[in-house]
Every structure is written in structure tokens, then in C-alpha cells.
């Protein structure tokens, strides 16, 4: 393997010394590449050989962003039958902490602004931050071995959508992604909800920071309260009233964020509860009383009471049966079908409630439903999934450049670019207009016209074992005669396959 001169210089003597003293795990990636220890996709592999998508491809498609060369074969070896192998794979994916992920970690570490503490975010240009956040998200989706984790991070990013173009979200969304979404993606729903409720980016995005009650006449800002009930928890038909929205808003008055707009410009982004801006009167939420507080108590005591009120509200809504149903329906829409089958939703919702909103256990129950196991190849890939699955399937080496982000923007699906609180749609219809740019992307990828991204066509064709094998690998099943014919006629079989109807579904 040829190494750039710069890479050699970076390695230097220190790297060599490290090899002598440390094991392979701590070895810098450049060295691993030098020693050819990094996984490469040029070994020959056996693609799937069934006429329809088998349970293994199904698991790789739904609990991830699609198979890479050789993934099918690797998973197949996990157990005696394809069914058992898929189940074993899904169980592994439910424990991302046990899956080594050096490649993705290494590549994502390049985006170092994302690691800055909240206060330091403001030293960066917002454009740089947002660019790095998008590229890091794309990088992890392409490279991570913890595919289900990345899928769930995306699911919650949509569920708790924040468009960073609003106010200080320009900086703070990065913190939200790290400390709220990714920290809790496979944890307890209540923890995720709590983290989101006091996330400075969320307080900006849904105006919680200006929801205040400073004098008796002040009306609360209902924005967050409404979306909390409608989108984050109970769902629009979850049985709450306009009065509930107003009462929840009252409970959440007084939470502020130090901003770049108002002085003092000190500890910008810090979230504080200010009792002077809180409505301490009694409230009634979803038939439960929140008692009033004697405002002559000490400031510290009042601060505690105010925090308790937030906890209480979130407890009530997180534990509400409508929330279990709403979250389960969304999970089933994502993992099973655009119109989630009611039986599966009921099963999943049951698991959600019994486990106290444990995301892992909820997903485990979902993955065991017949509806999940048997409904295959029926989800239309959203543009992000389309692009990532193409990069993975082709074993592309990519720096996940802005050029790829630009393709996603044209398809209306760049990460964190959805303007309104409900997040990107998770059904096929809104994405049907994106074909032209999918085809363009397929051609550009296959022709190696995307800067910083390379597909080794010869190796890919050779290692899959010929045209028919390559098609089986890309489609996750054997091609039909029409597909084989079109492949041969197209002049660019790889582009054609990636652009074909078959590759748009997962």
C-alpha cells in the first residue's frame, strides 16, 4: 500500500515506538493500514442466493444502513439457520457498547469541534459546526459497526427535531446531538425526554427559554408544551386538551438559557432555572394536580420546587399510556411498514410500558414480532439511507465530503435540515420526487466523480464473483431477468443497479 508522504511524516518515530510497546488496539490507524490490518472489502465473498430478501439482509437493512460486501456471509456464520443468525445479529446490535468500533471512531474524531464543551462551541463559526455535525453523522452511518445505534440516533433526531438555523441552536445543536440524542439513544425514554427538555438547543428551538411568568398578567409561551404533548410524548390524538397544553406551559416557566443575544456574554448556553420567572400557582395536568408553592420560601428552596415541577410533568407524560402507543407506532412505522400493523404496535407498546420505556427492551420485542420478521423489502429508503447504503454496498472509501451532503440537500434530506418540529417524514410518499438525484448520485458514485470518494469497481466486481453475484449483493436477492437484461444494456451496470427500483427499497 502506498502512503502519502504527509502520512509518513505524521507517523514519525513515535508511531514506530508505539508499535513496539502497545497492542494492535492502540495502534494508530495509519499504522494499521500500513500493516494491512484494517478491514478491506476486497476478499471474495458470497452474496445472498435467494429470490427474495432473506432474514439476514432484512436485519442488515432495517437495523442498519444496508450490507457491505461480505456482511451477509459474516452474519450467516453466526448461527445454524438464517433466521437464528439474523436474531443473533440483532441481539448483538442491541448492545453497541460490546461492539468495537475503531474505524468509525477514528474517522469521526477528525471532526474535533464536535467534542468542544458547550461554552466553547461559540468560538466556532456556525457553518463549520453544522458542516462537521452533518459529516460526522454521515461518517458514522457509513462506517460504524454499531449500525442499530446510528439508526436510533437518527430516529430520535427526527423525533426531537431541532433545526440548527434558529437562534443559538446554530451552536447548541451540536451539544444536543452529543449529550441528549446519542447519550440516550438506546437508554430509557424518560431519560432522553428529560435531557431534551432542559437541552439548551431545545429551549431555544421551541422557545422554552422565553416561557416566563414574571408578573400576574404574563401569558406562558406554549410552543414547547404543545410539541411536548403532540410530538414528543402523547401524540396528537393522545387525549390531552388545550387546557393541558397551557398548564404544562405554566409548569415549565422560568427555564432560561444564557444567550449570545443578551448580556452578560458569560457562560453562554448555560441553562438555569429562575424562580422569579416561574408560575408557582397550582396546576392540573392530565387530571393530576401539581400543588402550588409558597413563594416566600428561600430562593434555593424555590429553585428546587421549580425543578421538581419539571420532573413531575415529564414523569406524568412519559408514563402516560398514549405515549407508549405513540412511540411504538413510530418505531413500527420506521422498522416495519409505513402503515404500522396494529398487532405489532400493541405488542411493542406493551413492552415499552412493562420495561418503563426501556428502548432496548422495546426494540427487542419489536424485532420478535411476526410483522417485523415477515414484512421485508417494503420500506422505501429515505435519501440519507439510499446514499449511505450505496456507499456501504460498494465498499466505497469516502471522506463523507460536503459534496455528498450537497447531494442530500438536493434530495431534501441532509441531516438536521428539517425546518419544523415534527422531523423528516418516515413514509414513502414525500420522497418519491427524489429519483432524479438518486440516479445522478448513482452515476457519480459509479463513475468515481465524487471528490474524496472512490469505488474500486474491479475489486468489487471480482470479489462478488461476477455480474450476477454483484447484482445479488446490491439487491440483497437474485436479480430477475428484467434486471439482468437492464444491467447488461445500461453501459454502467453498477449505476443502473443503484438507480434501479430494487435498490430503493429496504
Amino acid at each position, binding site marked *: 500500500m502506498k502512503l502519502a508522504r504527509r502520512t509518513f511524516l505524521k507517523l514519525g518515530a513515535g508511531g514506530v515506538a508505539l508499535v513496539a510497546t502497545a497492542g494492535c488496539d492502540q495502534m494508530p490507524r495509519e499504522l494499521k493500514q500500513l500493516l494491512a490490518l484494517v478491514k478491506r472489502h476486497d476478499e471474495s465473498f458470497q452474496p445472498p442466493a435467494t429470490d427474495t430478501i432473506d432474514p439476514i439482509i432484512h436485519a442488515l437493512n432495517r437495523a442498519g444502513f444496508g450490507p457491505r460486501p461480505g456482511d451477509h456471509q459474516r452474519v450467516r456464520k453466526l448461527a445454524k439457520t438464517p433466521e437464528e443468525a439474523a436474531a443473533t445479529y440483532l441481539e448483538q446490535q442491541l448492545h453497541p457498547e460490546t461492539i468495537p468500533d475503531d474505524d468509525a471512531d477514528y474517522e469521526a474524531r477528525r471532526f474535533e469541534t464536535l467534542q468542544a464543551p458547550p461554552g466553547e462551541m461559540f468560538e466556532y463559526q456556525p457553518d463549520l459546526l453544522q458542516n462537521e455535525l452533518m459529516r460526522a453523522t454521515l461518517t458514522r452511518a457509513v462506517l460504524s459497526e454499531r449500525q442499530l445505534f446510528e439508526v436510533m440516533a437518527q430516529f430520535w433526531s427526527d423525533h426531537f427535531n431541532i433545526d440548527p*438555523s*434558529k437562534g443559538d*441552536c446554530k451552536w447548541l445543536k451540536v451539544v444536543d446531538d452529543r449529550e441528549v440524542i446519542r447519550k440516550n439513544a438506546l437508554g430509557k425514554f424518560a431519560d432522553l425526554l428529560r435531557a431534551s427538555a432542559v437541552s439548551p438547543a431545545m429551549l431555544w428551538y421551541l422557545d422554552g427559554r422565553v416561557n416566563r411568568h414574571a408578573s400576574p398578567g404574563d401569558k406562558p409561551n406554549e410552543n414547547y408544551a404543545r410539541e411536548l404533548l403532540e410530538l414528543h410524548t402523547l401524540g396528537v390524538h393522545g387525549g390531552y386538551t388545550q387546557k393541558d397544553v397551557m398548564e404544562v406551559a405554566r409548569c415549565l416557566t422560568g427555564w432560561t438559557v444564557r444567550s449570545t443575544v443578551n448580556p452578560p456574554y458569560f457562560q453562554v448556553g448555560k441553562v438555569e432555572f429562575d424562580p422569579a420567572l416561574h408560575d408557582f400557582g397550582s396546576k392540573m395536568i392530565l387530571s393530576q394536580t401539581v400543588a402550588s408553592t409558597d413563594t416566600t420560601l428561600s430562593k434555593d428552596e424555590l429553585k428546587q420546587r421549580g425543578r421538581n415541577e419539571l420532573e413531575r410533568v415529564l414523569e406524568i407524560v412519559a408514563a402516560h399510556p398514549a405515549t407508549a402507543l405513540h412511540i411504538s407506532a413510530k418505531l413500527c412505522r420506521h422498522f416495519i411498514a409505513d402503515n404500522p400493523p396494529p398487532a405489532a404496535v400493541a405488542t411493542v407498546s406493551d413492552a415499552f410500558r412493562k420495561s418503563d420505556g426501556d428502548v432496548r427492551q422495546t426494540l427487542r420485542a419489536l424485532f420478535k414480532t411476526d410483522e417485523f420478521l415477515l414484512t421485508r423489502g417494503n420500506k422505501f429508503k429515505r435519501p440519507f439511507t439510499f446514499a449511505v447504503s450505496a456507499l456501504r454496498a460498494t465498499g466505497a472509501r469516502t471522506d463523507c465530503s460536503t459534496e455528498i451532503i450537497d447531494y442530500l440537500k*438536493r434530495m431534501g434530506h441532509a441531516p438536521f435540515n428539517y425546518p419544523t418540529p415534527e422531523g423528516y417524514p418516515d413514509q414513502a410518499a414525500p420522497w418519491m420526487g*427524489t429519483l432524479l*438525484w438518486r440516479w445522478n448520485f448513482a452515476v457519480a458514485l459509479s*463513475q468515481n466523480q465524487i471528490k474524496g470518494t472512490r469505488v474500486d469497481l474491479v475489486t468489487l466486481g471480482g470479489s462478488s464473483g461476477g455480474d450476477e453475484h454483484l447484482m445479488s449483493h446490491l439487491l440483497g436477492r437474485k436479480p430477475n431477468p428484467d434486471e439482468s437484461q437492464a444491467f447488461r444494456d445500461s453501459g454502467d451496470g453498477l449505476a443502473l443497479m443503484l438507480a434501479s427500483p430494487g435498490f430503493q427499497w429496504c
Partner: protein
Amino acid sequence: MPAIEHFIHGDGDRRQTLVVVFLRGGADGLNMVAPLEDDGYYRARPRIAITKSKAVPLDGFYGLNPLLADLQTAYKDGALGIVHAAGSEDDTRSHFEAQDLMEHGGIVGGGWLGRFLRARTAGTSGPLSTVALGREVPECLRGAPAATVFSSLDDFTLGANHARLMTSLARLYQAQPNDLGAAGNSTLEAVRRIEALRTASYQPAHDAMYGDDEFSRGLLQIARLIKSRVGLEAASIDLTGWDSHFGQATVMDPLMTQLARGLGAFYRDMGREMDSTTLVVMTEFGRRVAENSAFGTDHGRGSVLFVMGGGIKGGRVFGKWPGLTQDVLEGPGDLPVVTNYRNILAPILGRHGAGANLDKVFPSFEIQPVEIYA
């Protein structure tokens, strides 16, 4: 769910297209549409005001800068309306802040046009539903379902193997029984229409004469796309450089010439197609009423906004003229904003199918639409 076939359109089917022109840099409304009958205007601008004799008369009170004379036809036809003392609530007088607020439509995530296209299409929009002429997608289009920077028609082809790939794709998409089949066929048809455009030379209709500048060329491309019915719903184009602190005429005269020539040619070229098209021209803020010592004007508040298109009660200047007396002027001496720009955009978006979704497009703003339509 709306039918997929609605991506593109037969010749009998008029698609509505919204064209947004943004004059970046803070264009001086008083120098484009002058209040000829307000003495305060002449007192504040002894050296740079437009004299009554040179102005193109509009309604007896206002007059157009003579360099904007090309707009007169549309105005007289009743297809062009002008809104004076228009703008946003942003009073920072900072280009960045004011553009940001105007394009987002308040302190809110995403751009107003992006939110509109999302809310409106709810079902599906086509690959060419939205184009931005220029180098990047402007903030107003942030979050749109399919926003494309339009640089060349070549962007829409499938490279060296175009013809063979198209045949193979047609074979596979035609065999799809579901919505994807329809979407595929519709996309193939859009690509074919663009292919036809690429190979043909374009002759603007009605002897319209576009200028040989970037702005005119952009408008010509937009007219072309609208006429070829590839499903264009929104287009944005900028005309940049209006920051006239110094030597107002040197800065603004060439830009006004470009603006008027482009808009005039577009109007002529489009002809009847204008009925299903709306073009709106806006800027982040106007300039100080009083000229400065360098024959220029500094950052101000209210400016003008132009609306051209089908159904407009044009041929008039909307908005109450506040006068230019000291008690009226805002801050350091600026024309106040009498009409918030959203109150103009709201009825336009209504005509373009926003329906009940206007509160999503302009959240936390109480819309008081100006009656620009009959």
C-alpha cells in the same frame, strides 16, 4: 396522497411558480420609488433625489426612478404592484441579521419558502420543483423538499451513458406496479424535457430582450424552465451589491438597470404564463432618508417590495405612506416599516396553495394580509 403524475405537466395544465428575487445589501426604496409629492424627501436629499421631471409617473404621488422605466409596462397592465415602507421587524440594521430574519421568517428554524414547500406539498414534489440560481441555496429555501442550485442544464443528465441508462431505467421503472413506477416514469419524462431544452436554442417570446448579465441570464433560465413544464414550483435569484453608503448613483444605477431590464424582459417573455406565476422582489432593509456627506445613504428600515404576477391588483402602490416628518422617522432618521413583508407574502402563498398551513410558514406572527388580490 396527491397523484405522482403531478410532478410534471401537460401543456394545457398551468403550474404555479413563485419566483423570489432578493436584492442583497439593503436597496434604497426611496431611490427606486420616490415620494414625489413629499417635500420632506427633497429636503432630506438635496443632491441625490429624483426630480419630478425625470421620474416616471406612477399614481400622482410616487414616481419610478427613470432607470426602472422598463417596469412601467407591467405596472400599467395592472400586473405589477409596489409596496412602499415595507420590510421586517428587525431593527439591528445589520445586513446579516436582517437577511437572516427575513429569509427565515422570524426567529424560527428553516426558511419561509422551505417551510411553505414542505407544508404545501405534504405529499410529493418533483425533482425540479425548486431551483436556486446562483452559487448556493439561500436561507429562505432552507428545509425545502428538493432545493437545487441551478448552474447548468447538464446537471440534470446521467453522464456519458445517458441514453443507455435511460432506456434501462425505463425498462425497470415501467415494470413497477406501485407509486414508484409512476414516480420513475414522471422523472424520466422530466429528464427528456430537459434533454429537449438542452439541445434546442431558446428564443424569448414577444421579442423580449434580456440583458447580457447574470441576473438576466438567470431569469431567462427560470422562464425557460417554467415554459417547459418540468414542475417548477419555486425559484430564487439574487441581485447583490446594493449597499450604497458612498456615491449612491455609482452603486445603484447599474443595478437598477439590470433589475429593470431583467424583470421587463421576463414579463414580456412570459406573456400569458405570467397568470400562473408570481414574482416578488425584496430586500433586507431600506436606507436612511437623509443622504450622507458622500452622496450615499446609510442603513435604514423601510424599503419597497415589488409583486408581479397573475391576479394582482397591480398598477398601484400599496401601504399607507407614513410621511417623512421627524415624529414619524425611526431611530437615526429612517423610513418606518408600515407593512411587514409577511403580510404581502401570506396572500401570495395562499394563492400558491399554502391553504391552512400559513401558521406553519410564519409561526408566532399574526398575519394581517394586505389585499393585493382582487
